[in-house]
């Protein structure tokens, strides 16, 4: 990869370019209007164009100057991201059908395995405590209408 000197710049530029093109493609379906009477497509198309322009400049900058390598993605960072984001995603999927208590327990368990140094026992205790706290604070005290146990359990 001698050609790409700064992969950080080149990749982010490429992502911005892709986003810009996508925005223009989607928004060209909306009425563009005239400068005097701007349609719903005017602003997104113009902004998409600007984004493409900046994206190309960023990509060019990634090709010139001194080499700056990207720091390698370490396993711990990746594990953290996957577990934290994955746990939250599963929470979103489970909260309606399973209810708040099971969703919270799974969320916290997945979070616990985002890092080293959690024993299974400590993780379970943390999960149960946090599920209890959220049930008491959000459902009992603040009265938020979230089912503690969902339809999956016959509620």
């Amino acid at each position, binding site marked *: 990869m001698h050609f790409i000197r700064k992969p950080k*710049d080149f*990749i*982010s530029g490429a992502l*911005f370019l892709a*986003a810009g093109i996508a*925005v223009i493609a989607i*928004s060209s379906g*909306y*009425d563009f209007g*005239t*400068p*005097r*009477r*701007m*349609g*719903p497509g*005017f*602003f*997104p198309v113009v902004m*998409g164009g600007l*984004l493409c322009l*900046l994206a190309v*400049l*960023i990509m060019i900058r990634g090709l010139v100057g001194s080499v700056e390598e990207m720091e390698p*993605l*370490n396993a*711990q*960072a990746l*594990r*953290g*991201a996957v577990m*934290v*984001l994955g*746990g*939250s*995603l599963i*929470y*979103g*999927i489970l*909260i309606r059908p399973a209810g*708040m208590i099971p*969703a*919270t327990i799974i*969320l*916290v368990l997945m*979070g*616990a395995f*985002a*890092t080293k*140094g*959690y024993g299974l026992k400590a993780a379970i205790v*943390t*999960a149960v405590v*946090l599920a209890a706290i*959220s049930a008491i604070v*959000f459902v009992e005290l*603040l009265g*938020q*209408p*979230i089912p503690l146990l969902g339809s999956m359990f016959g509620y």
Partner: protein
Amino acid sequence: MEFLSNLGIGFGEVLTLTNLFYCFMGVLLGTLIGVLPGLGPAATIAMLLPVTFTLDPSTALIMLAGIYYGAQYGGSTTAILVNLPGESSAVVTVLDGYQMARQGRAGVALATAALGSFFAGCVATLLIAVAAPILARFALEFHAADYFSLMVLGLIASVALAQGPLLKALAMIILGLIVGIIGIDITSGAYRMTFGVNELLDGVSIVAVAMGIFGLGEIIQNLASPEPERTAYKAKMSNMIPSKAEMKQIAMPVVRGTALGSILGILPGGGAMLSSFAAYAIEKRISKNPEKFGTGAIEGVAAPESANNAGAQTSFIPMLTLGIPSNAIMALMAGAMLIQGIQPGPGVIREQPELFWGLIVSMWIGNLMLVILNLPLIGIWVKLLTIPYKFLFPAIMTFCAIGVFTLNFSSFDVYIMVIFGFVGFAFRRLGCEPAPFLLGMVLGPMMEEYLRRAMLLSRGDPMVFVERPISGTLLAIAVFCIVAVSLPAIRSKREEAFQE
């Protein structure tokens, strides 16, 4: 006289049991998250936003504001006692604060930080009370074109002053502007970029995005780096009160830090962090013996701690008077106001005087609570610091998940949070700071509306932006900002300044 009656309105609003209670909760929570490294005010405010929907608008804002300036008090405690910044704006306090603690002057350092912050808080509150109405009256003269240019300037200046590569930050802003307009177009009723998803008709939730980027993003960042050793400095804090000589030493740095922080707070991109860095750099430069800095110079604690509190508070001015958030936290505050049905801008003072003056007076009362509370409670804060991060972050995850779900009782917002948590993670790895994205998102719909109105009034002539004196001047400053930052000489200076 008008000024006094305005303050009277403010006191009338704050001195209710509810508002005093939430002001107290705000500053207490602010101090708590300020003390804890790895949990910042942006993530906390995002997490608590859903809880505030049930509150009165002024009560909600009083509490959320308290979190921001309260965090400035808390951040210094960790910096001085543990050699770790509790808050990003306390990074420079670590340099001299911890050295002072090692010399057995921890109590004096803590008291200096608290007193400096309190002085700065009082001055900044007064400044808001005096300057905001003038600015708001001035802003009422603004036409659509002027507003548009003001937003352009605000966005550009916010990235020019902040750290990081300019081009990428500009691209992040534009991406934010585009995401901001997703949903039903208010003028034409067209569905834009909704992909047939009903939940997107009202737009992408700013709160969900902020929780993803800041809440989950911070956790992912913290987990990636090994936890630093946290050993709180354990010594009896017998003498908290600075001696007469020390008072003399800190007086001018506190005044200078306050002045600098007040100015930098108003500027777009400013706020607590920039203010503290600049204040430290200036103190070091003008000091007769700069070699003292880094070895426990009391000025190195006094100036940045005053500056960050002043900056945190004055950054409310552009948001409240012009409707332009100057940093990510103000973007969230603007979001909180919008959700409560209040359009941030010059109309706030006129139409909601109780809210506006109540918020200002609450800042002064909050500062008073902080300076009284902070010192006696230091023992408790130090105990809290012994809680390892591994027990803290699952709790943050849980509160983020519940908070974002309760926005609309819809899993869709949870997915938005996850998506933007990932986007924030990916862009941070690519060297793109996500904060400008959030600013763009908040301003997107407003900018489009002003652009549309300006162009309608000018019959489609874009020259209106240059020809109107206010708009022309604002755009000229914006161009100047870009040119100045791109010049190689200044660019290296800027990077140097942030290195310090």
